[in-house]
């Protein structure tokens, strides 16, 4: 478990993190989303000790991440693999040697049968058996990130930290890399922490997410809860185009963020014996579940009956102007 308590970090006069508290459970896929400059990457670097922090506390499985004890920090870094936006592979080493490199940093003999088997099995896991002896320059972006993933797993970490890992890739390749990460999470039970500005990353793989802005966590929860019915700042981040709604009557937005399949909308029409038009709607895919919201336009006179019905059914709603 990774626990951050009130973490503050500044570069000289610039405050980057202003009291961040997050708890990441074992085997979870956790996302940190926000615009560039929100402090996401710095936060990730603080967690694995690439950056120091001024106050607060970060612990990984109860062990404090601190620059004071370099030996302990090194041991911690071994339990956290990391992948990067620009892959950061060594240009002069082939795929196999890139994957083997972290072992060399730990004085592990890479010639033993055990080591060779592990390196080969990781290359197989990421689907690059036929590229084993290719140099990074001969690989596509998606393939390079696959090599980086294999490299990050070679020391058998408990956590995989992903720093904008798909930001340099096109949408189709992004989906492939994300499903690989999901597979790693499910099959190897590795906790995955992703830092990203891409909504689709969070929607596709994250179980929980924090929205970071100006060094503060402004919202935390399931992605569907954060994004279907977003708070003001998240709405600004999503940059959703304003919806064109009818000027007469009342526009009521309903949010569907649980898996209940009750046909609430048609049930309401029948039970209240009324008609209304659906004037706007949006459905999105979250980890293979569809969630979304609908806006209906009703006459002012039935407004209270509709909202009472929605409350009774446990559907959250909001009147739009």
């Amino acid at each position: 478990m990774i626990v951050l308590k009130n973490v503050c970090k500044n570069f000289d006069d610039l405050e980057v993190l202003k009291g961040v508290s997050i708890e990441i459970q074992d085997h979870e896929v956790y996302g940190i989303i926000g615009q560039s400059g929100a402090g996401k990457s710095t936060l990730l670097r603080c967690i694995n000790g690439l950056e120091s922090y001024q106050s607060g506390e970060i612990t990984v499985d109860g062990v404090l991440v601190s620059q004071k004890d370099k030996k302990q920090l090194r041991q911690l870094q071994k339990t956290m693999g990391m992948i990067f936006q620009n892959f950061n592979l060594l240009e002069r080493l082939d795929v196999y040697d890139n994957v083997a490199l972290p072992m060399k940093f730990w004085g592990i003999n890479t010639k033993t049968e055990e080591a060779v088997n592990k390196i080969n099995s990781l290359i197989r896991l990421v689907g690059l058996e036929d590229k084993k002896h290719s140099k990074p320059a001969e690989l596509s972006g998606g393939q390079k990130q696959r090599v980086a993933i294999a490299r990050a797993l070679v020391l058998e970490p408990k956590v995989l930290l992903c720093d904008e890992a798909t930001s340099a890739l096109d949408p189709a390749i992004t989906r492939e890399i994300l499903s690989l990460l999901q597979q790693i999470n499910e099959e190897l039970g590795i906790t995955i922490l992703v830092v990203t500005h891409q909504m689709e990353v969070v929607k596709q793989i994250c179980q929980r997410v924090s929205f970071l802005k100006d060094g503060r966590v402004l919202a935390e929860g399931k992605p569907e809860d954060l994004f279907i019915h977003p708070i003001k700042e998240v709405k600004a981040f999503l940059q959703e185009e304003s919806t064109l709604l009818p000027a007469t009557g009342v526009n009521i937005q309903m949010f569907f963020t649980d898996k209940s399949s009750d046909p609430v909308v048609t049930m309401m029409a029948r039970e209240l014996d009324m008609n209304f038009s659906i004037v706007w709607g949006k459905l999105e895919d979250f980890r293979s579940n569809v969630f979304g919201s609908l806006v209906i336009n009703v006459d002012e006179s039935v407004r209270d009956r509709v909202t009472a019905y929605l409350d009774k059914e446990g559907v959250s709603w909001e009147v739009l102007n």
Partner: protein
Amino acid sequence: MADIILKAAGQTLTMVFWSTLFSVLLGFIPAIILTLTAPDGLRPNRIVYEVLSFLVNTFRSFPFVILMVIIIPLTRAIVGTTIGTQAAIVPLTACAIPFIARVFENALRETNPGVIEAARSFGASDWQILFRVYFKESIPRMLNGIILLTINILGYSAMAGTLGGGGIGDIAIRYGYQKYSTEYLVVCSLILIGFVQLVQSFGNWVYKKLS
């Protein structure tokens, strides 16, 4: 004529080879210190970096002929004499060390900082990063620097010839310039051109092999 030229070519090769070798070995040390202590290095240290950088610049800005004279006592201490091919190797090396130190520093510092960060994230020590990442990634660039150095030393070796070092450059000056022999001048020039082309082609070939 052939004998004279052949002997001189041998002297040039001796001077260039040994000065390149010694300066590469000795220049590597300040290059590493500069890389480590640079603002973006593993152990940033402004004072050490600036002082060493100043020294490198100072020695680089000395005209070779003057440097050669200044370090005569050093040459005598090392070789025992200040005349001859062996003696010329000392000032050539001394002149080449700051040059190659700067070239190596640039080559090393061109290493992608992301790769260094990746190595750090896996718990690599500074020494491991220095040799397994910086050094390994920079080999082709450093090789390019050595080629450049070799060609530069070849040029300086002509001047060293005037202080009794011998070599092709010396023959070109004594026979070609002072004795007005166009023949010597042309042959010496052709040999030097050929030598530079050869070194450069070899360098390009190895660079391609390595990267």
